[in-house]
């Protein structure tokens, strides 16, 4: 075998060695240890799920491990959760963390967006045991693991959805651009931007829809448009308010403190802002009906409707 051939072989090994080194280095950076299935409810299994199939690391770092910045860094989460539990009325930090996983939109950490998916739903579909394991791992970040306590909250965690992820295709051919036009066309009654913000445009009456496509399923969006009262996002419930002089108002509370309540009220398609003082309020009650019009199916053509859905799904 000639010397030049041996040199070529050595050179090839050097290049491949460099590639392998980069891969190992990147694995350390990304925290994507991945691999292997984790079993049991324990911090070790939870750590594997966190950095692997749970995909938690896509958005959360732990200290200097990982690069996810969409969600809060999880370093010291256990002790922070105890403080948050006191503020929000939960019995323990663990219960607060359970709520944060089961209903991620309930308490969004200041400075972060409400983008966390429900991990027991598709496409992540984490089983109950794996979520419990993650909880036990999170307990070790700023605290001590307590498996018994973790097992006690197991009934609060839903079983993984068995539903399949079906890449969504509108039943008719539609153009998301047409959906965008409908969304922002405020000359029409069905303009979504009258009540929703997308990026920097629109009015903040209902939930902010920026990046909605990254966190919600097509089915959820379709239901939200056709049956707006089916699921009402926390903080956007309609309030029924009667004043001491007998006037009734339906609207969404924009702000509330000891001195005044500011309410957004729909007045024949236009949103008006009303300020009420405590002494003039006779009665105030949460309603199960959304303020969003329930007749969107009459206001939009089928093509416009699916166009809007496609447009929303493209917002990531």
């Amino acid at each position, binding site marked *: 075998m*000639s010397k*030049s*051939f041996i*040199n*070529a072989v050595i*050179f*090839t090994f050097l*290049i*491949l060695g460099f*590639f*392998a080194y*980069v*891969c*190992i280095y*990147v*694995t350390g*950076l*990304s925290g*994507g*240890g*991945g*691999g*292997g*299935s984790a079993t049991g409810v324990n911090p070790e299994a939870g750590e594997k799920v966190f950095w*692997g*199939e749970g*995909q938690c690391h*896509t958005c959360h770092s732990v*200290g*200097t491990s*990982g*690069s*996810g*910045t969409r969600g809060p*860094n999880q*370093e010291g989460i256990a002790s922070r959760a105890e403080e948050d539990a006191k503020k929000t009325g939960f019995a323990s930090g663990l219960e607060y963390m359970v709520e944060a996983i089961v209903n991620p939109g309930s308490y969004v950490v200041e400075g972060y967006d409400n983008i966390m998916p429900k991990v027991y739903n598709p*496409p992540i579909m984490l089983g109950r045991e794996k979520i419990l394991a993650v909880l036990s791992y999170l307990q070790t970040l700023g605290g001590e693991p307590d498996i018994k306590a973790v097992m006690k909250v197991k009934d609060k965690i839903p079983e993984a959805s068995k539903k*399949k*992820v*079906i*890449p969504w*295709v509108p039943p008719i051919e539609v*153009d998301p*651009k*047409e959906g*965008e*036009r409908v969304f*922002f*066309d405020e000359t029409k009654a069905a303009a979504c931007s009258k009540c929703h913000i997308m*990026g*920097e*445009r629109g009015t903040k009456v209902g939930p902010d829809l920026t990046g909605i*496509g*990254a966190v919600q399923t097509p089915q959820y969006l379709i239901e939200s448009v056709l049956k707006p009262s089916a699921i009402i996002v926390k903080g956007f419930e309609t309030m029924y308010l009667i004043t001491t002089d007998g006037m009734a108002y339906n609207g969404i509370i924009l702000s509330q403190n000891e001195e005044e309540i500011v309410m957004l009220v729909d007045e024949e398609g236009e949103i008006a802002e009303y300020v009420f003082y405590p002494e003039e309020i006779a009665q105030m009650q949460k309603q199960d009906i959304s303020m969003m019009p329930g007749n969107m199916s009459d206001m939009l053509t089928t093509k416009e409707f699916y166009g809007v859905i496609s447009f929303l*799904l*493209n917002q*990531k």
Partner: protein
Amino acid sequence: MAQDGEEVVQYRNFFGLDGRLIVWIIAELHLMFAAFVLGVPIFAVIVEIIGAKGGDIKFDNLAREFTKLLSAAFATTASLGGLLAFALYGLYPGFMRYLTDVFHPFMFVYALCFFGEAFCLYGYYYSWDLLAKKGKWLHISLGVLLNLFGTALMFLANSWATFMMAPSGIDMETGLVTSLYHAFYNLLWMPINIHRLIANVAFGGFVVGAYAAIKFMGARTDEERAHYDWMGYIGNFIGLAALIPLPFAGYYLGREVYSASPVMGSIMMGGSFSWTFVIQAILIGMLFIGGNYYLWNGMGRIKGAERYTPYIKYLNVIIIFCFAVWLTPHNLPLSGEERALIGEQYHPFSKFFGVMAAKNAVVNLLILSTFFSFLIYRRANKGEIMPFSSHGSTAKIALIITAGLCIMFLAWYAVGLSGVELEENVKKYLSPLITCIVIQIFAIIITILITFANKGKFAQAFLFGVTTIIAVMYMAYYGFVVMEKANLVLRYLSVAQLAIVLSCLITNTIIDVFLFKNAKEVGGIRWGKMPMRTQYALLLLCVVIVTLMGLMGFIRSGLRMDWHIYGYMQDTSAGAFTPSIAYMGWTVCLIVLLFLSLVTFVFWLAGLGEKGKH
């Protein structure tokens, strides 16, 4: 056969080894050999046509040598294909049962095309002498037919792979085929076809380049050295030429992955696979740097090239800068201390390099710089040029037709942009893009006029300058503007950038071809007088592109996560998890080593016959 009540086997392992690992290795090896077998005939036929038209036997011999490698690799490709089929049917019987149910009519077509490819390949190779004199064009036609069969084979197999990623034409609950046509022509089929077609040519070019490098290093005579030096140059030229449009094909494919499934798109660019694209950027950067390094060193064997060497240091700086920006991740990892010090989550300066606006700009600059390297290499040996007008009306017509086609394409896209239905306050951000395209159209017209006035070199520089100012400098700035104010416009901006850069490359190539036709040679090219380090550059290009193919294979297949057929058939085997990047790295290294060892062995076998003849 399973009896009633007996559970049908869905998965098996391979003598105790993980079935997925076995299929992964065999599939990737088959794919790599197939890429070589499909890529090489494309340029073998082109080289043969150049030889036939110019009457230079050197080109004919080169095309024949390419084909010799091809015929040796073909049998290995076929064997690996058979092995892959057995592995899939044996280790994943449940999944393959369904895939066969859906695609069995096309599987027969595949087998027929395979016969066609085999007959054409061996016919093409063995009839070389027979048809050398009187039937040259018949021989070339056979080569074209070989390419058509090869492309058809690849397109057929691609539809199965893309169906797994973006299934259509089936009922997603029951799996019942509702439209075989749509199952075949699914959303990702054409983007993959285009991407693989171009990538195969780049792959073939760089593998041939490495073959030539090994031969060069072991050559005993000056004649041999000169031949393999030239062959290495052609291999590098082909590889780089195909590499230039590849990022655009990749962008198209990525965009369609997003369209097919937003979840898959998020996993690709923002989830588990986002870091693999940083590794991809490193490998592609190595290809560009290696290719340019080879060209610059190659100028050392050309007398007269010293006139252009001062440019190289600037090109070096530009290319390394582009590379650095390209591989900067959006969320550059910062330690807790760094975050506290900076006071925000992203680095205040480098965060701008991580976004698409910056990346689009540097990719275009990288491509323009590499093209510039080509041009200075081409003219290194040329001295005084003939006036453009001396080439007669043929040159003028060729330039007018080529530039005219570029202008038509640009105008078509600009008209399309003006008709895009967008909200007025978003649409207004399209106007600067249309203005840029109109400026480029005028720049091309002025370039033609300057060329006709016998100032071709100045015309080329003018077009380069205008293109760089518009497509790189202005559009980089404007990219940040639209990202902030009208993100939707960014996708139009990328296409406008690409169209402007391509129009510059095409127009300048045609000018260059005629400008240096019959130009006086300064001192000739001393083929064979290449430093040994350049041959290592060729080796680097080969190893890197093979590794890159292994990496991209992992990404494309891994995007399905734990689904055999995304959204319909879930992978319930023990190997359904996504392996870590480190594990992937080791596996790809193993695959690359196996491929290179097999290729070396096969090429050695092919050379045995030649030794006998000598």
